[in-house]
C-alpha cells in the first residue's frame, strides 16, 4: 500500500481538503484557497529550509488546488527537488506533480530529465518504475528524445525486475505511438519477441501490446512472434481455470492476454509451419469447444470474459478465411448468440456475422439465420442492434434471398429511425438493382422506396431507376403503368412526381391505349401535382409537357394553354419562364417532323458503375462497399450481374441483358464534342450531351445527364502509346516486380477476381472482366492500417512495349486520390484494350508514404493474353480438320509436366474454362482428355487456338499441347497454362 493511505501521514492536507469541502459558497472556497496559497508561498520563500515531508505536503496541496481548477504558478522547483529524495512517498509526489503540471519549461525540463536519468540508473525497481511512468505520462517529444534509446536497453536487460520490464514495455509503446521516429529499431527487437516466453504474465501482456504495435510497421522483424504467440496462447487456453492465479479472472485464465495474443496473430497470415498451424487450429477449436461447455461460474463476469476470447477467436478465423470447418463452427456459435437474452451478445454476434457473410466458406451458413435476423430487425428495441441486423441482411443477400430481404427492409423502413433511413434506402436500392431478375420487381421496389421514404431517396436512386427503365425496353410499359398508378395517390412524394413525370414523358404512349390512362388523363394527373412542386420539379414537368405534345398531338392545345398562362410565361423564376417561352414557341413553330426529331425518346444511357453504389461507399467509408465488391461472396450471381458472358454483343450499345451495375460496361466513349449553340435551350434539355449551359440554371435533366454521362477519363493517357513517360509515372522509376509477383500472377491466369496482393499495410483486390479485345479492371487498394497513406500513386506501365516499341496493350487509368485514410479503400478503374498479342503482363507500381517512410511495390498486373480468349464451340470433325491445318512444327507447343495439384477432373475443367477456351466434349476418343478451342481477340488480329490436355493419373503427369496460328502465342499460352495444374 502506498504511504498516502496512512491518513495521518499528511494531516495538514486532509484538514485542507475537508475545509474546502465544507465551504458553503464558491467565494468561501476561493478565499480558503488564497489563504492556503499565501501560506505555502511564504513557507517556500522562508529562510528556514523545509524538510522533505513539508515539501511533499505543500506540493500535494498545490496539486489539489490545481485539480480544483486554479492556476498554479509556483512550486515547480520544490516538486523537482522532491524527485531527488530517497523517500518513496516524497519522490512519488514529486513525479505526480511533474506528470500533471509539466510543460516545456526549458530550465526545469533539464533538471527533471536529470532526475529521471538518475532514477533509471538507480537499479532500485520502484524508482525505475516511477521514472518510467513519468516518461509515459508526459510522453512529450523532449522526453522521447532524451530516453527513447535507454528504455529498450532496460526492457531487454537480463537483470531487470519483472515490474520494471513491464513498465519499460508500456513506456516504450507510449513513446513509439507519440513519435515513432524516435524509437530506434535494433538488435533488441529480436529479444523483445522473446518476452512472450517470459515467466511473468504481466511482462507478457505488456510485451504483446508493444509487439502488436511495432510489427505493423516492420512485420518481418517480428515474424518469429507468431510461433511464440501460438505456444503461449496454447498454454493459456489449455490451462486449468486456476493455474494462472492472479491472472485468472472469474475462472477464465488470462482473458485479456488471450485476446491480445489473438489480435497479434491477426497481424500475420496463417502460420506456414504445419506444426505451429496445427497447434493454433487446436487452440481455436478448444475455444470454440469451451463455448459449448457449461459455465464454471454463474457470474456474468465469467461468461463475458469467455466471450471476449471467443469473439477474438472468431475474428482470427475470419482473418485467415481458410478453414471452412472453423468458419462454419464460428457461424453456428454466433447463431446461438443471435437469440441470447444479453443485448450485448446479440449486437456483437450480428456484427461478427456480417464479416462471416463475406467469406465464401461461411456465406451459406450465415444465410441459414435469415429468419432470426429478420426477426431482430422487427423486434429489437435498440436501434444500434437493428442497424447491425440491417447490415447483416445486406451482407448475406444474394440472388436466392434478395426478394425476401428487400421486402423485409422495405417494411422496416416504414418504422426505421430517421438517422439510418437514408442508408437503408441506399441499401435497398442497391440490392434491388444488383439482384434484379425481373425488372418489374425492380421498378416496384424503387417506387415503393420513394413512397415509403421519399425524403430519404437521394437523387442517385431515382436517377438510377430512370437509367434502367430507359435502357430496358421490356420494362418501359410496366414502369409507365406503375408510375401512373402511384401518382393516383392523393399525396405523393415529390420524387415520385419527378420519376412519374420523366417516365410518362418518355413512355406514356405505351399506356395511352387504355382509356383509363388516356393522354388527357395522364396530363391532368401530372398537372394536378404541378403547383405543389418545387421549381426543379416544375421545370422537369414542363419538359414532360413538351414531350406530350410530340407523343400525343391531341393534348397540344391544352398544353399550349398551360404554357401560355401568365403564371408560366411571366414566372419569376427565370428557368421556368424560359422553358415555358421556348417550349411554347417550339410547339407552335416547328413541324411535326421537326418536333418528332427534337423530342425523340432519350437514347440509352451508357452503362457504368451504379452511382448509388458510389454514394454508399462515400457514406459508409470502406467496408460497406467492399462487401459488395467482394465477388467471392456470390458466385451464383456471376451469370447475370457480374460475369463475362460468352455471347458476343456489340460493346457500344448495352445489350438487353446488360448488367445493371454496369460492370460489363464498355470503356467510356470519347467525350462528345461541345455543342456549338451555347445558350440554346434545346441543346440543354434534349441533347444527350452533358455540357452544362452556363447561362441557365441547372435544370434537372442537365443534372441528370451530367450525372449519367461517363466522366471523361481524367488522365486519358494512353500510357503506352507515349514512350516519353509522364512526369510522375516514368517507367524508369518503377522498381523490379517483387519476387512473388509471378506466383501472384499465376493465381489470376484462370480467374478474374480476388486478392492480388496483401501485406501488413496494403491489400490490393482485383475485379476484372474481359470481352473480345477489351477489358475493364477494378483495382481496390485497401489501407489496412489506421494511419493515412500519403502521396498514394499507383501507375501502370507495360515494359514489353518499351522494349519493342510496338504498342500491344492500351491501358487507360484514372488517377486516384493521393491520400488513403486508415482503414479506407480506394478504387481505380483501368480500361484495357488489347491491340496485338503480347507476352509480358503490364506492371503495376504502387508508391505511397506510410508514417513518413516511402513505400513502393511493383506487381504484375493480372492481364495475360488468355484474358482475351473467346471460346469457340465446334464439332469433332471441325476440330480435327483445324488441328491438321495447324501442323507446322512452330505452330505447336507442347509441355509434359508433373501435377502440382491433385488431379481432379472437375477442377481441371473449371480451370480450362477460366483460362478462356471452350471445352469440347466428345472430341477426343479418350474421355479422360480435355480438348478446348478459342480465339484470341486483339484489335490487330485474331489468333485461333486449339488445345489438348492429357492427364496421366498413374504417373501424376500431364501432357499439354497447344496449336495456334502464331508461334509465340502457342508457346506463351502453353507456359501459362502448364503452371496451373
Amino acid at each position, binding site marked *: 500500500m502506498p504511504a498516502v493511505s496512512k491518513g495521518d501521514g499528511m494531516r495538514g492536507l486532509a484538514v485542507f481538503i475537508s475545509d474546502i469541502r465544507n465551504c458553503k459558497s464558491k467565494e468561501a472556497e476561493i478565499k480558503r484557497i488564497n489563504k492556503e496559497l499565501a501560506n505555502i508561498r511564504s513557507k517556500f520563500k522562508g529562510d528556514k529550509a523545509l524538510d522533505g515531508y513539508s515539501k511533499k505536503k505543500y506540493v500535494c496541496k498545490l496539486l489539489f488546488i490545481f485539480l480544483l481548477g486554479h492556476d498554479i504558478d509556483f512550486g515547480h522547483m520544490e516538486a523537482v527537488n522532491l524527485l531527488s529524495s530517497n523517500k518513496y512517498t516524497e519522490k512519488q509526489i514529486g513525479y505526480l506533480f511533474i506528470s500533471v503540471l509539466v510543460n516545456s519549461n526549458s530550465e526545469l525540463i533539464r533538471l527533471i530529465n536529470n532526475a529521471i536519468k538518475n532514477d533509471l540508473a538507480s537499479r532500485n525497481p520502484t524508482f525505475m518504475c516511477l521514472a518510467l511512468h513519468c516518461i*509515459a505520462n508526459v510522453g512529450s517529444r523532449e522526453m522521447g528524445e532524451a530516453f527513447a534509446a535507454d528504455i529498450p536497453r532496460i526492457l531487454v536487460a537480463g537483470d531487470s525486475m519483472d515490474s520494471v520490464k513491464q513498465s519499460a514495455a508500456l513506456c516504450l*509503446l507510449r513513446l513509439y505511438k507519440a513519435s515513432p521516429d524516435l524509437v530506434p529499431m535494433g538488435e533488441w527487437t529480436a529479444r523483445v519477441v522473446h518476452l512472450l516466453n517470459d515467466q511473468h504474465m504481466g511482462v507478457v501482456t505488456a510485451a504483446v501490446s508493444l509487439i502488436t504495435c511495432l510489427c505493423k510497421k516492420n512485420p518481418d522483424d517480428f515474424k518469429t512472434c507468431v510461433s511464440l504467440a501460438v505456444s503461449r496462447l496454447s498454454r493459456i487456453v489449455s490451462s486449468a481455470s486456476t493455474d494462472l492465479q492472479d491472472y485468472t*479472472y472469474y475462472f477464465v485464465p488470462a482473458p*485479456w492476454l488471450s485476446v491480445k495474443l489473438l489480435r497479434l496473430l491477426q497481424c500475420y497470415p496463417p502460420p506456414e509451419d504445419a506444426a505451429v498451424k496445427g497447434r493454433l487450429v487446436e487452440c481455436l477449436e478448444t475455444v470454440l469447444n469451451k463455448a459449448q461447455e457449461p459455465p464454471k461460474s454463474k457470474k456474468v463476469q465469467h461468461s*463475458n470474459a469467455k466471450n471476449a476470447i471467443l*469473439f477474438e477467436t472468431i475474428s482470427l478465423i475470419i482473418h485467415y478465411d481458410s478453414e471452412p470447418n472453423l468458419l462454419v463452427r464460428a457461424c453456428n456459435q454466433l447463431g446461438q448468440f443471435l437469440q441470447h437474452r444479453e443485448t450485448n451478445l446479440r449486437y456483437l454476434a450480428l456484427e461478427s456475422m456480417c464479416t462471416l457473410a463475406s467469406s465464401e466458406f461461411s456465406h451459406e451458413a450465415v444465410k441459414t439465420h435469415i429468419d432470426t435476423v429478420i426477426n431482430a430487425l422487427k423486434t429489437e428495441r435498440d436501434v*444500434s442492434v437493428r442497424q447491425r441486423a440491417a447490415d447483416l441482411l445486406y451482407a448475406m443477400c444474394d440472388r436466392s434471398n434478395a426478394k425476401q430481404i428487400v421486402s423485409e427492409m422495405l417494411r422496416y423502413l416504414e418504422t426505421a429511425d430517421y438517422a439510418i433511413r437514408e442508408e437503408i434506402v441506399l441499401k435497398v436500392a442497391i440490392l434491388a438493382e444488383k439482384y434484379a431478375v425481373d425488372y418489374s420487381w425492380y421498378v416496384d421496389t424503387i417506387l415503393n422506396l420513394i413512397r415509403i421514404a421519399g425524403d430519404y431517396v437521394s437523387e442517385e436512386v431515382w436517377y438510377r431507376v430512370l437509367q434502367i427503365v430507359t435502357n430496358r425496353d421490356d420494362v418501359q410499359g410496366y414502369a409507365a403503368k406503375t408510375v401512373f398508378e402511384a401518382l393516383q395517390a392523393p399525396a405523393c412524394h415529390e420524387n415520385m412526381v419527378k420519376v412519374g413525370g420523366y417516365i410518362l414523358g418518355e413512355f406514356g404512349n405505351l399506356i395511352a391505349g387504355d382509356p383509363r390512362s388516356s393522354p388527357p388523363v395522364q396530363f391532368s394527373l401530372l398537372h394536378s401535382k404541378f403547383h405543389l412542386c418545387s421549381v426543379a420539379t416544375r421545370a422537369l414537368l414542363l419538359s414532360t409537357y413538351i414531350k406530350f405534345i410530340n407523343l400525343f398531338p391531341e393534348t397540344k392545345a391544352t398544353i399550349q394553354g398551360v404554357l401560355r398562362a401568365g403564371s408560366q410565361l411571366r414566372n419569376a423564376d427565370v428557368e421556368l419562364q424560359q422553358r415555358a417561352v421556348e417550349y411554347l414557341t417550339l410547339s407552335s413553330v416547328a413541324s411535326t417532323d421537326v418536333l418528332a426529331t427534337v423530342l425523340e425518346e432519350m437514347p440509352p444511357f451508357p452503362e457504368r458503375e451504379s452511382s448509388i453504389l458510389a454514394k454508399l461507399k462515400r457514406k459508409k467509408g470502406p467496408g460497406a462497399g467492399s462487401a459488395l465488391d467482394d465477388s467471392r461472396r456470390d458466385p451464383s450471381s456471376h451469370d447475370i450481374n457480374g460475369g463475362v458472358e460468352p455471347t458476343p454483343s456489340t460493346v457500344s450499345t448495352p445489350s438487353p441483358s446488360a448488367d445493371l451495375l454496369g460492370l460489363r460496361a464498355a470503356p467510356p466513349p470519347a467525350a462528345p464534342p461541345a455543342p456549338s449553340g451555347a445558350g440554346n435551350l434545346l441543346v440543354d434539355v434534349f441533347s444527350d450531351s452533358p455540357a452544362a449551359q452556363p447561362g441557365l440554371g441547372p435544370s434537372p435533366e442537365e443534372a441528370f445527364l451530367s450525372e449519367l454521362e461517363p466522366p471523361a477519363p481524367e488522365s486519358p493517357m494512353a500510357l503506352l502509346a507515349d514512350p516519353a513517360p509522364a512526369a510522375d509515372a516514368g517507367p524508369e522509376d518503377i522498381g523490379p516486380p517483387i519476387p512473388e509477383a509471378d506466383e501472384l500472377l499465376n493465381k489470376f491466369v484462370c480467374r478474374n477476381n480476388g486478392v492480388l496482393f496483401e501485406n501488413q499495410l496494403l491489400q490490393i483486390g482485383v475485379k476484372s472482366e474481359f470481352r473480345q479485345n477489351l477489358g475493364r479492371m477494378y483495382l481496390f487498394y485497401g489501407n489496412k492500417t489506421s494511419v493515412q497513406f500519403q502521396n498514394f500513386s499507383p501507375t501502370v506501365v507495360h515494359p514489353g512495349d518499351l522494349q519493342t516499341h510496338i504498342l500491344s496493350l492500351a491501358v487507360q487509368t484514372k488517377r486516384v486520390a493521393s491520400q488513403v485514410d486508415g482503414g479506407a479503400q480506394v478504387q481505380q478503374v483501368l480500361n484495357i484494350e488489347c491491340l496485338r498479342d503480347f507476352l509480358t503482363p503490364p506492371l503495376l507500381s504502387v508508391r505511397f508514404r506510410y508514417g513518413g517512410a516511402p513505400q513502393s511495390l511493383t506487381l504484375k498486373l493480372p492481364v495475360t493474353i488468355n484474358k482475351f480468349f473467346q471460346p469457340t464451340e465446334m464439332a469433332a470433325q471441325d476440330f480435327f480438320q483445324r488441328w491438321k491445318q495447324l501442323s507446322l512444327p512452330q505452330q505447336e507447343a507442347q509441355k509434359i509436366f508433373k501435377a502440382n495439384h491433385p488431379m481432379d477432373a472437375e477442377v481441371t475443367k473449371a480451370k480450362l474454362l477460366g483460362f478462356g477456351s471452350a471445352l469440347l466434349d466428345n472430341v477426343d476418343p479418350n474421355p479422360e482428355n480435355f480438348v478446348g478451342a478459342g480465339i484470341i481477340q486483339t484489335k490487330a488480329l485474331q489468333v485461333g487456338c486449339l488445345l489438348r490436355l492429357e492427364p496421366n493419373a498413374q504417373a501424376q503427369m500431364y501432357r499439354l499441347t497447344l496449336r495456334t496460328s502464331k508461334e509465340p502465342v502457342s508457346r506463351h499460352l502453353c507456359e501459362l497454362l502448364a503452371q496451373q495444374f
Partner: protein
Amino acid sequence: MIKFFLMVNKQGQTRLSKYYEHVEINKRTLLETEVIKSCLSRSNEQCSFIEYKDFKLIYRQYAALFIVVGVNDTENEMAIYEFIHNFVEVLDDYFSRVGLHVLQLLLIEQPLPAASRLAARAGTVSAK
C-alpha cells in the same frame, strides 16, 4: 486500441478523463458532452456499445457513475466491457479504505498506459 477513458457522473460532469491521443482541450469538452449525452440517453435494454463518429463507445454504469471507454473499430468490445468491470473491482479492492479525494489523486497518478489495460486483477497496480 483505447483512445480515451472517461468517468462521468449522472449530472454529466466529467470526474476523470484520460486521453491516449492528443485532443485539444476545447475539443475534449465538446466530445465529453456529446459522449455523455449519448450514454445518458440509453436505457437498460440497449446494448453497451455506441458508434460515435470514428469511435466506438463502450460504457458501463455503476450507480451514479458512468465509465466510458472510446476505442477504435479494431478493438474487442467485450474485452473492454469486462475490462471496465475489472478496473472497478481493482479500485474497489485497493482503495476501499481511502477517501475519495485521495482516490482522485491516485487515479491521475496511475499511468494506465495506452492499450495496456490492467492486465489482471492487481496486475499493473502492484507495479508500484
